[in-house]
């Protein structure tokens, strides 16, 4: 019962946040001063021409009406029409989604898998040089912007060694059938750049999670009944580390998506990010708005998932809310 209640509460907050987020995005894109129609046509356009364009884009309607119809469309998965091409935004996004999904979907789990042993070792050896090395590496990985990491990887693996392509993308299922090698070779460096940044960040939190457990009385109890130090730490620390990871993922998912946008630019990948940047350059506001909302929905959904995971992992939270 307690769990059901806690989950219902969080889903409620999620829905409200979702609504709030659409308002924020809409306000920024549509309600700020500045006339898109005027800007698109340039200073030479006559007021009649501008007015005609405004009418075609539906900008003559009051903001509230525009928001309402946009929201209604969103609920049905319709993100509106592009100013530039007149095509549906959702239709344009669909083919781009795969690249970005591969990028984020591959790098996240790899980063998590890498960060747990790194964080554990850093915690265990925090007084020795090994721990200092791991911590320093993660500091450096966090400080280097993802595009710098990406460029360094390109310099090493593409320019010097010539092992991997520096940019471009091959779909997994291309016109010539399944192309695993081409697909993978184009994704290795982008994924690796994201993994380095994310794993550095995660391992720091994992380390702190484990260090916290090291100071806990229950770790001493576990050792007093026969666990070795390492095994006690893994046994009791993993859940704590899992909590840290869940927290960081919830906090960092936005930054990670943004990182993916930048990585797409570094490696010229035809994903959501490059589409967003093209739309920004051409001031195609419905496309910008659509992608932004999509990204925010992902961020909020991941936060929701993290919240729910928290309830499952930490039994104290369950009964506190009961």
């Amino acid at each position, binding site marked *: 019962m307690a769990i059901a209640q806690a989950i219902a509460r969080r889903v409620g907050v999620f829905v409200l946040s979702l609504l709030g987020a659409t308002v924020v995005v809409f306000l920024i894109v549509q309600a700020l001063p500045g006339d898109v129609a005027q800007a698109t046509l340039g200073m030479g356009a006559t007021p009649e021409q501008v007015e005609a364009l405004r009418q075609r884009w539906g900008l003559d309607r009051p903001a509230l009406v525009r928001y309402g119809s946009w929201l209604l469309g969103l609920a049905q998965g319709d993100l509106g029409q592009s100013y530039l091409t007149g095509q549906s935004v959702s239709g344009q996004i669909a083919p781009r989604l795969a690249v970005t999904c591969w990028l984020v979907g591959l790098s996240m789990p790899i980063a998590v898998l890498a960060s747990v042993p790194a964080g554990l070792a850093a915690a265990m050896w925090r007084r020795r040089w090994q721990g200092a090395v791991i911590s320093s590496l993660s500091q450096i990985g966090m400080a280097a912007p993802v595009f710098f990491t990406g460029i360094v990887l390109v310099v090493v693996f593409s320019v010097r060694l010539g092992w991997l392509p520096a940019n471009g993308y091959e779909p997994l299922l291309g016109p010539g059938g399944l192309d695993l090698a081409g697909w993978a070779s184009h994704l290795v460096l982008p994924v690796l750049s994201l993994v380095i940044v994310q794993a550095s960040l995660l391992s720091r939190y994992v380390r702190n999670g484990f260090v916290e457990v090291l100071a806990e009385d229950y770790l001493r109890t576990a050792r007093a*009944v026969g666990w070795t130090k390492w095994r006690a730490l893994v046994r009791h620390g993993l859940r704590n580390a899992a909590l840290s990871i869940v927290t960081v993922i919830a906090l960092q998912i936005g930054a990670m998506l943004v990182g993916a946008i930048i990585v797409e630019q570094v490696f010229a990948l035809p994903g959501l990010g490059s589409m967003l940047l093209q739309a920004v350059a051409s001031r195609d506001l419905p496309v910008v708005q659509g992608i932004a909302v999509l990204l925010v929905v992902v961020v909020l959904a991941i936060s929701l998932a993290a919240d729910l995971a928290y309830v499952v992992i930490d039994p104290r939270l369950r009964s506190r809310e009961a």
Partner: protein
Amino acid sequence: MSLLEVDHLNVWFDRGRSQVVRDLSFSIDPGQRLGLIGQSGSGKSVTALAIMGLLPESALMSGTVRFEGRRLSGAKEAELAQARGRDLTMVFQEPMTALDPTMKVGRQVAEVIRLHEESSGRETRRRVIEMLDRVGLPNPDRITDAFPHQLSGGQRQRVVLAMALMLGPRLVIADEPTTALDVTVQAQVLELLDVELAAHRAACLFISHDLAVVARVCQQVMVMLDGRVVESGPVRQVLSQPIHPYTRGLIATARLDLARPGSRLPTVEDFYAGGQL
């Protein structure tokens, strides 16, 4: 042969700058119960941790600790871990934090069995419930599926005792096991410890700052001050004829029923002002 022999034990903290245990030697025979009293900071708990091999990494240690003739000091962590829980074990002061909050208590007790013995899941569960019942927990089959935060402090300390006594260790080190509990629960837990130690014929190093508690559980007592043992002997003798002024002070401050109403209460400093031993 003694069960536990501690020989010239020294412990330093702070990169050797502060010494917390000074040249400590004592032994415990099988089944013997030895009390260790002193103020907080006198080095009691550190002594216990040193015996168990649980000192923080930053501590330095010299001297030897032998259990049944086997050297524990300097032994490898894996070797020590095998002895801990099976041969000797330790119960800590804080029941509220001594159990992992994210794990059911039954599982935490069960792991002690799994660590040291082959045991089927069903058999393990039966033994866990039996043990929880023995330490006086009501509805043991329900409690085994409870999380620590759902239990009271006294119940948690019983769970910790269950973990410690599960495999019938020959030495139990109890570090102020009842200090954090309220008085009535304290008496119950002491009673339980008394009975269980007797049932297993286990020896005990009982650490406390409370003379009355030590007098109840132990036959022998050592008084510790600034990392040194200043006095030791049978409990009755030490309590009735204390030699060291510090011990006299401890006893006087513990017997507040003797203080005259309205007069200033005695402090340890009235008897012992520190300095030369």
